[in-house]
C-alpha cells in the first residue's frame, strides 16, 4: 500500500475521531461526559505555549503536557501532525480536491506570513495577551463547528424531516420518522441550537475552506500559526527527503507537493514546509524520491531580520492597544457580561480562554454564547451566559469539565452550586404582581437554591375597580442568589423579562460587589 493511501486513511480516521468527540461533547443526563472531548486541544502545542506564557506559568492543566508529544514527534518526523492528523488540514485537502485546474502557487516568500503571525501570537502571549485561539487551527475548527457548522447541519436536517412530517403521507412519514429517530439518537443535537456570531464565524470558516480553490491547503501553507510552530520544530527533523540521480527535474513532484516545500525544478526542498504527505514520492515518474534518515543539511527559511522585528513589535504593541478600552479598568465592567460558573477573574480569564467554544458546545441550555465586542476585542468569541437564551443549570458542571485551558475551573457539584455568576434584580415596572396585581410565582418556583433566594412578601394591592386583594410579590435574598438566571429564562413576561441577572456580586471579582 502506498504511503499516500496510508496517510489518507490516517486523515480520515482522525477526522472521524474529531467528529465523534465533538458530537459526544453533549450531556446525556449524567454528571460527566465520559469521553475526553478536548483531546485534540490537549495535543496542541501552540495553545500550550501561549497559555504557559500568558498565564505566567500559573496552573497549567495537566492535559496540556500531551502537546509535548506533538513537539517530540515533529522534531523526529517533521510536520506529520499537519499532513496526517489535523482535522482542519484534512478538510482543506478534501475541498482542495474539488479544484479542477492546476493553480499557480503564490511566491515562496508568502510562506513566511504564517511565521510572522506565529511571532505576533507568541510575543503578545509573553506580554500576557492570549489571542492565539483566534487563529489556532484546532481552536478555530472547534469554535466554527460549535457555533456555526454543526447548528447549520443540525437545523437543516431537522427542517428536512419536519417538512416530510408535515406532509402527513402515512408510509413516507413512518420511514422518515424512523430515520429521524436514529439521527436524533446519534448525530443530531439534543435540541435545535442557536448561536450569536453563527453567521460571522461560519463565513470565516467557509472562506478558509474556499481558499483551497485558489490553492490547495492555502491556509496550511500561508496562514496557520500552528503549522508555523511545527515548522520551526521540524527544522532539524531526522526524516528527510532525498532525490536520487534519476531525477530529471520534471517538476511533477513540486506540483503534487501539498505544503509547497519543493521548488519548481526540484532543486530545493524545505523541511519546515514539508507535511510528510508523500505525494512527491508517489507522483515521481522516475521513482527517484525517497524519505529516510538522511544527512542532507536542512534548508533554513530566511524570515528576514526586519520582518521578524516588525512582527515582534506588532505582538508587543497589540497588548496595550487591545487593552486601552474602559473594560480594562477594574472599576468598570459590562454588566451583561455573565461569565460561566468557575470562570477565573476577568483579567486571568482572558489570559486563559482560547475561544475554542467547547463550553458553548456542551452548555446544556444553549445559554453560553460567543461574545463579539462585549468583552473587548481581546475577549472576542469568549463565552458569556445570556439567561434569556438559556440559564445556567443548577446541577450541571460540564463547561468546567471541557475547558481545555483552565479558564473555567473544573469544580465538584457542591462547590459549583455556591459560585455566584451575578445577582438577579426585579423590574417592578414589568413584574405582574408588582405592576399589575396579577398573581405570578414562576421565578420563585424555578429558583433552585435551598432555601430559595426568591421569597414572597404578601402585599395588599388595589385593583382599578377598587377591590383589594393580596398578592405574593417576589423579593430577592441577595445572600442566597447565585445568578443562575433560571428566573430570567422562565419569566412569563415575554420578550424582556421582569427579572434579570447582571454580573454584580460575581464571586470571581473583588471590585464588582454590592454587599458589604
Amino acid at each position, binding site marked *: 500500500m502506498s504511503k499516500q493511501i496510508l496517510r489518507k486513511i490516517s486523515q480520515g480516521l482522525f477526522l472521524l475521531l474529531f467528529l465523534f468527540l465533538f458530537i459526544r461533547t453533549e450531556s446525556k443526563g449524567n454528571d460527566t461526559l465520559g469521553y475526553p472531548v478536548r483531546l485534540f486541544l490537549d495535543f496542541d502545542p501552540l495553545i500550550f505555549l501561549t497559555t504557559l506564557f500568558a498565564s505566567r506559568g500559573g496552573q497549567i492543566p495537566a492535559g496540556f503536557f500531551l502537546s509535548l508529544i506533538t513537539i517530540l514527534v515533529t522534531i523526529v518526523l517533521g510536520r506529520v501532525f499537519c499532513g496526517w492528523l489535523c482535522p482542519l488540514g484534512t478538510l482543506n485537502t478534501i475541498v482542495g480536491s474539488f479544484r479542477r485546474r492546476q493553480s499557480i502557487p503564490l511566491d515562496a516568500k508568502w510562506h513566511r506570513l504564517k511565521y510572522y503571525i506565529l511571532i505576533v501570537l507568541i510575543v503578545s502571549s509573553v506580554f500576557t495577551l492570549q489571542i492565539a485561539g483566534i487563529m489556532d487551527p484546532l481552536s478555530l475548527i472547534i469554535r466554527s463547528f460549535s457555533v456555526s457548522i454543526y447548528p447549520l447541519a443540525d437545523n437543516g436536517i431537522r427542517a428536512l424531516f419536519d417538512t416530510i412530517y408535515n406532509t402527513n403521507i402515512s408510509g413516507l412519514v413512518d420511514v422518515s420518522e424512523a430515520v429521524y429517530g436514529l439521527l436524533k439518537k446519534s448525530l443530531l443535537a439534543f435540541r435545535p441550537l442557536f448561536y450569536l456570531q453563527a453567521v460571522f464565524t461560519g463565513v470565516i470558516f467557509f472562506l478558509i475552506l474556499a481558499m483551497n480553490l485558489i490553492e490547495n491547503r492555502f491556509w496550511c501553507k500561508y496562514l496557520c500559526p500552528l503549522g508555523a510552530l511545527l515548522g520551526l520544530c521540524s527544522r532539524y527533523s531526522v526524516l528527510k527527503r532525498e532525490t536520487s540521480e534519476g531525477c530529471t527535474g520534471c517538476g511533477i513532484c513540486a506540483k503534487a507537493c501539498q505544503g509547497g516545500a519543493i521548488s519548481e525544478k526540484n532543486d530545493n526542498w524545505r523541511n519546515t514546509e514539508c507535511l510528510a504527505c508523500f505525494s512527491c514520492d508517489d507522483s515521481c515518474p522516475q521513482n527517484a524520491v525517497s524519505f529516510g534518515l538522511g544527512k542532507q543539511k536542512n534548508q533554513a527559511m530566511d524570515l528576514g531580520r526586519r520582518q521578524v522585528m516588525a512582527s515582534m513589535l506588532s505582538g508587543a504593541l497589540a497588548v496595550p492597544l487591545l487593552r486601552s478600552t474602559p473594560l480594562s479598568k477594574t472599576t468598570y465592567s459590562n454588566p451583561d457580561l455573565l461569565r460561566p460558573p468557575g470562570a477565573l477573574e476577568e483579567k486571568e480569564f482572558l489570559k486563559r480562554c482560547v475561544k475554542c467554544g467547547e463550553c458553548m458546545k456542551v452548555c446544556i*441550555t444553549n445559554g453560553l454564547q460567543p461574545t463579539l465586542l462585549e468583552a473587548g476585542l481581546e475577549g472576542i468569541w469568549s463565552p458569556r451566559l445570556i439567561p434569556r437564551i438559556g440559564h445556567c443549570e*443548577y*446541577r450541571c458542571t460540564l463547561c468546567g469539565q471541557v475547558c481545555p485551558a483552565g479558564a473555567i475551573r473544573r469544580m465538584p457539584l457542591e462547590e459549583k452550586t455556591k459560585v455566584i455568576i451575578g445577582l438577579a434584580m426585579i423590574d417592578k415596572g414589568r413584574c405582574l404582581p408588582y405592576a399589575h396585581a396579577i398573581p405570578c410565582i*414562576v421565578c420563585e418556583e424555578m429558583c*433552585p437554591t*435551598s432555601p430559595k433566594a426568591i421569597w414572597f412578601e404578601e402585599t395588599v394591592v388595589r385593583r382599578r375597580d377598587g377591590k383589594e386583594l393580596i398578592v405574593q410579590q417576589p423579593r430577592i435574598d441577595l445572600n442566597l442568589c447565585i445568578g443562575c438566571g433560571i428566573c430570567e429564562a422562565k419569566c412569563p413576561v415575554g420578550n424582556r423579562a421582569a427579572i434579570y441577572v447582571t454580573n454584580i456580586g460575581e464571586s470571581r471579582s473583588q471590585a464588582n460587589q454590592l454587599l458589604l
Partner: protein
Amino acid sequence: MDRRKFLKTAAVAGCGLLIGEALHSGVSPSEAAEKYDLVVAHGAGKPASDITKATISAIGGMKRFVSRGDIVVVKPNIGWDRLPEQAANVVKPNIGWDRLPEQAANTNPEVVAAIVKLCFEAGAKKVKVFDRTCNDPRRCYKQSGISDAVSSLGAEVSFIDERRFRDISIKGQVIKSWPLYRDIFEADKVINVPVAKHHGLAKLTMAMKNWMGVMGGQRGSIHQKIGESLADLCLVIKPSLTVLDAIRILTANGPQGGDLKDVKRLDTLIAGVDQVAIDSYGATLFGMKGSDLSYVKAGNAMGIGSMDISRLKINRLNV
C-alpha cells in the same frame, strides 16, 4: 372497534370469565375494590414497590384499569433535576426536575417502575412515560432515576417532541384552548402518578397540578389563575387511575426542594379514580384541608370530583 378486534376481545373476555369463575368462588377483586373511593396504603419501612403492589391490588388490581393490548401512558412528575429522595408523575410521573430520587422533587422511581410492571402484567401492549420538565430533560430523566427504572422494563421513555402538541379546545372557565401533548389523548389508558409536595403559590402540588407536565406553550401564565386553570385542564384530561406518591413528601422549598431536611418519609400511597378526592386527601398529609387548595375547590365546584373526604369510602391499608 372493528369486527376482528371485537371478536378477539370477546373471546378473551369469555375465557377470562370462565377461568375467573373456576378460581374464585367469592366476589372478584375488582368488584370488591369498587366499594372504595380511595385506597390509602401505608407500609413503614417497606420497599416502595411492595406498597405499590398492595395499593393497586386493593383498588381492584391493574386489570380493572388496563386491558390487554392497551397503550398506556404513565405520567410521573420528572420536572426537576433532583434525586428520588427529594419528591414524585401515561404512567405520568413527575419528572420535572433535575433532582435525585431522595430529594422528593420527582415521583419515586420504584413506584413508577412497579406501576409500569403491573401494566405489562395486565396485558398492556405499550407503556409510555414522559413529562415536560422544568430543568433540562436529559438531567431530569436520568437523575430522577425514572428513566433507568422503567426503560429496562420495556416502557417507552421519550423526551417531549414539540411537534406533538395539539391545540385542544377546553370549555373551561379560564382556558378555552391550549396545546396539550397528543400522546395523552391517543393512549387507551392514562395513569397519573404524581408526587406530593409543597408549592409556593398552589400551596401543594399533587395529582391535578401534575398535568402541567403535558402543557405546551407558555404554561407559566396559568399561575395567574391557578385554581380555575387546573380544574379546566382536568375537564379534558381524565386518567383511569391516579396514584399519589407520598413515600417521601416535600414539605417546604417546593416544587423542587434540594434540602433533605424538608423531606418527610411517610411510606404512603393514595390511589383512586377521582383526582379531586386524591388531592383533597393528600392535603391532610401536610396538615391542610382540601378546601385550602384553590384547584381542589374549583374542581369540586365544577363537578370534576369530590373534595369532601368524610363522605368517601376509604380503604386504609397497612402493608
